[in-house]
């Protein structure tokens, strides 16, 4: 019927320069999953309602299920597979210590969202956590442990627990 304009877009993905083949229908979530085999970023609602697809775009938590791939040109994208900085490592450790995941499907999105919070505010209150995490759904209802895991991942809590 009609052909779409194909092009290549370059961006930084988990620290490395990459090139993706796209057209004007390409959505970042599917580009990450299909072209780079980064399947930790999940599809669930497709309309930025649930947060399972959360990634970092230049350090900010963004829903990738509605983001055109062309929009990340020249920017830096981080997925759960590449979340290896100090905050990310603390969070992943806390997620295991608190035994947070049940089905686990939403958890990469939860961790990406939580990481963006702690990078901005290392001492969030319970209210801060809830406000920041409100957009990421967990159908297994692991919220109680998600809150605990974030609270135990702050620098103070983490190093405090280490020195005990």
């Amino acid at each position: 019927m009609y052909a779409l304009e194909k092009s290549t877009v370059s961006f930084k993905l988990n620290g490395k320069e990459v090139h993706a083949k796209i057209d004007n229908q390409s959505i970042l979530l599917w580009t990450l999953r299909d072209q780079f085999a980064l399947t930790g970023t999940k599809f669930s609602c497709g309309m930025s309602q649930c947060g399972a697809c959360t990634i970092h775009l230049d350090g900010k938590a963004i829903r990738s299920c509605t983001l055109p791939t062309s929009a990340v040109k020249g920017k830096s994208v981080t997925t759960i597979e590449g979340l290896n900085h100090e905050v990310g490592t603390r969070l992943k450790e806390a997620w295991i210590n608190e035994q947070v995941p049940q089905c686990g499907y939403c958890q990469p999105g939860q961790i990406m969202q939580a990481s963006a919070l702690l990078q901005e505010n290392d001492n969030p209150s319970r209210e801060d956590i809830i406000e920041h995490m409100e957009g990421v759904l967990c159908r297994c209802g692991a919220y109680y442990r998600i809150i605990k895991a974030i609270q135990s991942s702050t620098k103070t809590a983490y190093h405090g627990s280490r020195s005990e």
Partner: protein
Amino acid sequence: MAPEVNSRSRRAFIRNAGGVSFLIATGTWFTTKSEVLRNRNESTSIGSWVTVAPDGQITILNPAAEMGQGSMTALAIIIAEEMDANWKDVRIENSPIEPDTYGLQWGGQLGGPMITVGSRTVRGYYHALRLAGAQIRKCFVQAAAIKWNTDASEIETRESIAFHTSSEKQLTYGEIASFMEVPESLPSVSENDLKKVEDFSMIGSVVHRYDIPGKVNGTAQYAIDIRVPGMQYAMISRSPVYGARPELDNEDEVRTMDGISHIVTLSHGIGVVGESFEKCLAAKRALKITWSQGNKADGYDSRVAFDEYMQLADGSQMGESITELGDVHKAFSEASKEYHTVFRNDFVYHAQMEPLNAVVSVASDGKSAEAWYGSQAPDRARDAIATELGIAFEDVTVHNCFLGGGFGRRSMSDYVVEATQISEKIKAPVKLVWTREDDVQYGAFRPISLQSMSASVNQKGELTGWKYRIVGTGDGLLASGARVPYYSIPNKMVDLHSIDHGVRTKHWRSVGHGPNKYAIEAFIDQIARDQKTDPFKFRKRLLATSPRELKVLEKVAEMCNWTSAVPEGRGRGMAFAERSGALVAGVAEISVDKETGKIKVHQFWCAMDAGLVVQPDNAIAQLEGGIILGLSSALHESITFSGGVVQQSNFHNYSIARISDTPENIDIHIIPSQENPAGVGEASTPVVGAAIANAFLDLTGKPLTHMPFTPDRVKMILG
């Protein structure tokens, strides 16, 4: 190297290059099921369950679907505990989907269906796997005894090592596996060979779940993550009214869209196949379909259905009998007071976070197939593929992946059959993905129901008669949880009317227990309060002859300090339920924003007796999650039909609990027990609706009789 098994022997374990593998064959079961095992061994798959490699690695197969309930770890713990394995040596892999070998204990034997439903897994494998673990341990002890030329009674085992008690000698299981002679069959064991509960080192302790690290770093594989060579994406536009058949009006237009390779007409929809998710979505949106009329669900309106239910509830025609005890009519004729309340429950959607999907590759000759899916009934799904293609079960290779939530929806195989049909037609592998809108609008829901409750009370304020009629859709789904054998009410009559509206219904975590326990427990509080009796005291009296249940109720009262004053502006409510053998009591503490009609649950206390609990921390996680899910269904969730069509489509108009709904405090206590394990996965969900409704009654004096208790409904009740 393919292992060799002499099919004429009754060998229960096999040697191969990788060490020894143990077929699970326990006690009398082995003799009766050996035919099956032998037949399996002659075919390509070997029913090994536990393999010990010379390097000491112990591989334990997991026969159950892992959808977040943690049983893949629990089952391995049960085997490892009895075989005295060092947990650090254990690796867990999914078993083949071979129900004859890996199915649940069904009528006392393994080999039932491989279904992960009804909180059955741990209780359904517990005894068989303990015996199996003990048998495997005995094999290592006997092999070491032969090696050391000593008696087996002088050998002890601990953390994958066999010790000779009177000398310094010791051998690891891996070392023993490298020389172990293969006996004809596994040694017999009895209950006496099993560990005593007080000697458990893993069962009942906190062992981290095996699947969690992969779920934290993004490597856990769900079916949607599978990619096979030559695979294309597929999507389906399905009947908006269930049963309607499609006629595509613009096939040529859609077929030539960019990236689209095939259009496939199915009985209930039109499938589009293309190179990517985005291409399929664009094509699906472009489809112009005329749907057939004359479907049973045409014109169905779920709000109007309640009027029809009311007529049946008030009518004299008896439905299917659920409970009949004593003489209810006499009880009511002699009553000093009668009570009557009608409760309503809306349709509820599963909303598992991973939308339904499957990858299926049918061979070009149609004579075999391979499939990847996440199913709560992977054996039925395998069978469904075979049936669809007209080939044998053995010719279908399947891989059950992690399930991104199940909640009952994934015990259906509809999505697997669809992917099979498309792959067969296009002669290539497909990944069929349901969009969230597909998942909502072609859902199979927890049924709509109406509970008409009547009770009679004598002059002492005791419940003498209990009349309870359920009217709804979904047959047996409506009946679950309707019985209250633990409450001593001398005269009971419970019956059920089910009407088929032509829309799909399905088990939803805890099934009918959600709606029924809500109605039962909310009704009890209404009576208790009218009788000026504390609801806890009122229930205590009802549980006078049910000591185990009573203990659970008393525990939760103690936990929340029931007799203490409730903080200003808050209400407290209690509920009790049993589900899958687990006994649960819950207390909610809530407040209500009178302006917005929003209910906030601040605290939730929960006590459970589920017999012996294999993984206590995981059980607590299940109860926490079940409370949040129960809260979500009680406060938010409602599917409605108009003109036979589901009115909701995604999370913007089908609201589920978000993190702000989380109570500030969730306090859970598991009552220690050595009784047989009961099912934990659904245990806490049924008490939540009533606990909230009862807290609302406590706070406002007004009953909540229609679940969910949405802000609009709450505002209306508060006037």
